[in-house]
């Protein structure tokens, strides 16, 4: 979580010596070969069953195929973005509630957070799909997916924010009090800006899990990427091909996000290192 702990691991573990490096190289080669072999085996199986035939893959370059899956991709991105824009600030509010000095507020926030952190999201989706309509609450499909995403994600980001707030140097509290900031001002101008910076990489990773959560859209028949894929399979009968394409899209998206998080974290660590004499 904190940048200091990551750089501490670099200090704690010795760089491997020549023998260690050779062993690492060997393991890398062997495992790469194993993975390649598995892929080859899969491809061979597909080949035997005629799944690699060009006429089963080329359609994915057709404009209507692209448009169909593109619509799903847009749905996925939209659900993820909307959920994040609401869930992250809400998560921050929950975190502030949990660390609040007001006992009741803190207890309610804690229960809320633990509840939605513990419950599988599928159950929350079912609640919105099946239970709530019985009480006359009927949401559009988009919100039947996005509201559960918000509930679950805000609970876990609340804990991310809480950890970030806890990771800010305690001396900052004291320094702020000494120059005459109130508790609220200290939180707003001193603790939160530093905490948010600390947790930025974790928030990007939370985007990855939101993206994956959005695949539950098939339960409520919302046109996100996986649901579009499913529909496409039932029309074209290209089961293997469709899911391979869909998977690749997810993997690329998540890879980019994870990469961005790593980049950000490295940049932060470098900045922390540059300021050798950090003000403490």
């Amino acid at each position, binding site marked *: 979580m904190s940048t200091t702990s990551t750089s501490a691991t670099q200090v704690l573990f010795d760089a491997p010596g020549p023998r260690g490096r050779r062993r690492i190289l060997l393991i890398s080669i062997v495992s790469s070969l194993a993975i390649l072999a598995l892929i080859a085996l899969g491809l061979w199986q597909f080949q035997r069953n005629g799944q690699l035939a060009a006429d089963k893959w080329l359609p994915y370059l057709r404009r209507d195929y692209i448009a169909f899956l593109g619509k799903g991709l847009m749905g996925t991105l939209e659900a993820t973005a909307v959920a994040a824009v609401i869930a992250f600030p809400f998560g921050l509010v929950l975190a502030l509630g949990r660390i609040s000095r007001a006992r009741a507020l803190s207890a309610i926030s804690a229960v809320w957070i633990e509840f939605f952190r513990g419950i599988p999201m599928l159950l929350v989706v079912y609640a919105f799909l099946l239970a709530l309509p019985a009480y006359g609450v009927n949401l559009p499909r988009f919100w039947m997916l996005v509201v559960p995403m918000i509930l679950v994600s805000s609970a876990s980001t609340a804990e991310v924010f809480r950890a970030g707030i806890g990771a800010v140097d305690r001396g900052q509290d004291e320094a702020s009090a*000494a120059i005459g900031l109130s508790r609220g001002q200290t939180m707003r101008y001193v603790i939160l800006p530093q905490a948010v910076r600390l947790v930025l990489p974790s928030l990007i990773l939370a985007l990855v899990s939101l993206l994956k959560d959005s695949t539950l859209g098939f339960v409520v028949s919302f046109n996100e990427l996986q649901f579009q894929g499913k529909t496409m399979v039932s029309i074209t009968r290209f089961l293997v091909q469709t899911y391979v394409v869909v998977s690749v899209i997810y993997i690329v998206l998540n890879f980019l996000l994870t990469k961005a998080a790593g980049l950000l974290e490295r940049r932060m660590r470098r900045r922390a290192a540059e300021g050798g004499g950090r*003000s403490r």
Partner: protein
Amino acid sequence: MIRFDHVGKTYPGGTTAVEDFSLTIDSHASVVLVGTSGSGKTTLMRMVNRMVDPTSGRVLIDDEDVAGVDPVKLRRSIGYVMQASGLLPHRTVAENVATVPLLEGVSRRRSRSRALALLEMVGLDHRLGDRYPSQLSGGQQQRVGVARALASDPNILLMDEPFGAVDPIVRAELQKELLRLQSELGKTILFVTHDIDEAFLIGEQVVILRPGGEIAQQGTPAEILADPADDFVESFVGSGVGKRALHVDEVSGQQVVLDAGDRPVGVLREGSRS
């Protein structure tokens, strides 16, 4: 004027940091509390701006009990410099200095130009204003801490071992700078240190504390050196030994001052003040 009136502090854990302490600090005076670690210096200092509330007794500023003053308002009217400069790492130096003026509603432009002027005043190039604290040396950070404490032009300056974390050469520089500032500004300064040399340099009045915030002796540096109250004070100021135990010897008609090891440290001149 700051007056400690029989103050005591027992922390929730049961530690009694200060038993019964009384002291009056005149306006524009600089008073140094000096004592070993844990003698209650920080505790006493923080009673002035209510970062610590005494469990007995009162602290009065200009005859007003601080217990009745809103802590946030009180702290904004008192400058506070701490050992680790306590600067905000995510704000530039100038923003750090201007934090409180900005909150008080002073315009951005005015508080910035005032911050830059304050930086110059504590001996920093105003171009450092756009750096982040981590891009400054420890000594520079401490100067920024002093500039920030002066930002709201307080009458009182509390300084808790402000130069404790920098090397001796920089410390000497900072001490000199503080003396210069004080001769210009004439604040009421309460300064805490456990370095007796620093205490004698900075303080017009020096208060030597025993554990529990008990006053072992108070007076001007000369008074304390001339007449240590007891063995504790004597050993604390080191007047029995080393570089403070000086004696005079006559060498070729001159009065030469020697230390305890008979090393010459200077020449005695009658009434030589300037």
